[in-house]
């Protein structure tokens, strides 16, 4: 069996803050198979962006292991780092701050090509630049345009071209469409899907938008305050959500289906931040089903094939669907 593209085991990322230790990513394990898309959903502050950034080494992990194509890349030196960077890239959320305002479209795309030393002559670099621009659908006439002269969708395309320039295998997409208008959002999602098909890319797609994540992902991880609460094949998650948080999250999405208004699970309270958290389920404070047992540390358990959840009451609460 082939190695998964990305595997993380017990990954942790803590930050020291004046208030205490922030457990942004706390003991997370999962695999992403080659050519697949893993969607990571959760609300702001749940650590989903930190998870993505830790995997591609924009942040140093606190503990745990990261494997790229079977190779342990948790600790790397400068030279290996360059190699990893050529295989793992990131597309950012904010199309306004992800491009250097003083670089033209061409500068942005050429820079990684020039630095990679894969291309010997200027003509080769030019050819590759043209190719990339065509690939992501940026007109030739915009070659010398500055980011502020482009709309959000086009800026995002430039960011995608930059990420693709080194022919990576794995791309972390950190909320790549949440700053875009609906019609533009659909264009960019289609582009990402086409690229995956053409180049066999593996994505980790971080977003708070559940309908987007359902559309684009093969598997989904749901995070809450730094912990993985549920992971399952994408479609199953929407039909058979098992964790109370996932259920609440799904019921909170405003639906465009006006004939079948769904019953909403009302959550009390607000999302806090995981600073020096107590052991046990972090959702318990807002969970309508919380009991004493929820104060114990929870284990990720495979309840249905490939469907893991970390909730000690999962079986009794889901008797009707299991």
């Amino acid at each position, binding site marked *: 069996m082939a190695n998964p593209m990305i595997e993380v085991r017990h990954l942790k990322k803590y930050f020291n803050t004046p208030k205490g230790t922030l457990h942004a990513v706390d003991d997370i394990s999962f695999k992403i198979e080659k050519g697949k898309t893993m969607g990571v959903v959760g609300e702001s502050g749940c650590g989903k962006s930190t998870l993505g950034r830790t995997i591609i080494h924009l942040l140093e992990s606190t503990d745990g292991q990261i494997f790229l194509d079977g190779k342990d890349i948790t600790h790397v030196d400068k030279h290996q780092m360059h190699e990893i960077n050529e295989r793992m890239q990131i597309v950012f959320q904010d199309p306004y701050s992800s491009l250097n305002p003083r670089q033209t479209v061409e500068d942005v795309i050429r820079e990684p090509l020039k630095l990679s030393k894969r291309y010997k002559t200027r003509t080769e670099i030019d050819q590759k630049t043209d190719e990339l621009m065509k690939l992501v659908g940026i007109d030739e006439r915009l070659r010398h345009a500055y980011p502020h002269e482009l709309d959000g969708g086009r800026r995002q395309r430039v960011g995608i071209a930059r990420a693709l320039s080194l022919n990576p295998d794995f791309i972390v997409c950190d909320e790549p469409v949440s700053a875009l208008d609906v*019609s533009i959002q659909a264009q960019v999602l289609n582009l990402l899907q086409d690229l995956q098909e053409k180049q066999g890319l593996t994505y980790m797609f971080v977003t708070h938008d559940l309908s987007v994540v359902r559309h684009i992902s093969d598997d989904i991880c749901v995070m809450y305050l730094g912990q993985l609460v549920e992971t399952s094949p994408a479609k199953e998650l929407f039909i058979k959500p098992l964790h109370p948080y996932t259920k609440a999250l799904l019921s909170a999405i*405003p639906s465009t289906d006006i004939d079948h208004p769904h019953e909403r699970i009302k959550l009390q309270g607000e999302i806090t931040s995981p600073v020096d958290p107590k052991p046990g389920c972090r959702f318990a404070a807002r969970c309508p089903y919380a009991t004493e047992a929820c104060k114990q540390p929870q284990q990720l358990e495979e309840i249905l094939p490939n469907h893991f959840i970390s909730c000690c009451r999962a079986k009794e609460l889901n008797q009707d669907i299991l």
Partner: protein
Amino acid sequence: MANKDVLLSVKDLTVEYTSEGEVIHAVNHVSFELEKGKTIGLVGETGAGKTSIARAILRILPEPPARVPGGEIEFEGKDLLKVSEADMQKIRGKEISMIFQDPMTALNPIMRVGEQIAEVVKLHEHCSRQESIEKAKKMLEMVGIPGERFYEYPHQFSGGMKQRVVIAMALACSPTLLLADEPTTALDVTIQAQVLDMINDLKRKLNTSMIMITHDLGIVAEVCDTVAVIYAGEIMEYGTREQIFHDPRYPYTIGLFGSLPDLNSDVERLSPIEGLPPNPADLPRGCAFHPRCPYAGEECRKEHIELKDIGGGHLCRCCRLNEIAAGKAKEV
């Protein structure tokens, strides 16, 4: 018409901005009516002119560069564009109030949240300080914030709670009309759900009418009675919620639904609207949507197209409805 209880009637509203010698046509001849206790949704993308409409109603457009060269905004028998600034100040916050998109910037960071609500109450209801504080506490509780948090500062509140404070402030004087400009865009889904539920409850309780400005069709489905789809500063399609969601006719509206990943059904690829919204300083001739429209024909490029009633008050600004219907039938 006469039997309807119309609260607000906007006729032919036009808003222009002047920037570097160019005239930007932000809102073009927009007309709609809003009944008491009902909610109208203004849907459209960034820059479609939704916010300009709301700001024109409240008369808080920055003038210059903005200008309202024409139109009428009739609110309870008065034309808001003609009343004096002093009268307008009495209307703002008292009869019409607005919830802004960003709760982070809508509150004064160095003033206690309760005081900010009390100030609005005191200004409009001419009551004593003590009464206004009582009222403010009651408002806080109504939006689900314990009254003892009256004395806290905005930075001690989370984003969702700040937005509730903003809503409490907007509703403090029981306005008859509430303008909500993307009130939940900055919030997380579970918090958004709480806030939307709360707005719906309060609206019912106080019988407030609302203009909901949003780009999210899901929100429209949840809170609006009628919907106006705005594109390039014009109403392109207008109808009841059912008319728009069951039977969208205008190609842009159809495109919006096609761009939306659906939670309940599987599509391999989305069908986005190609191209970009037009430059409002240089709108295309004819139908503003024709450069992006898959159904566009010769007549769409020639002259401006009027809104037509296509049955039951469902208005649509399109001259190729028959062709579109035929095309759809073929697909099926």
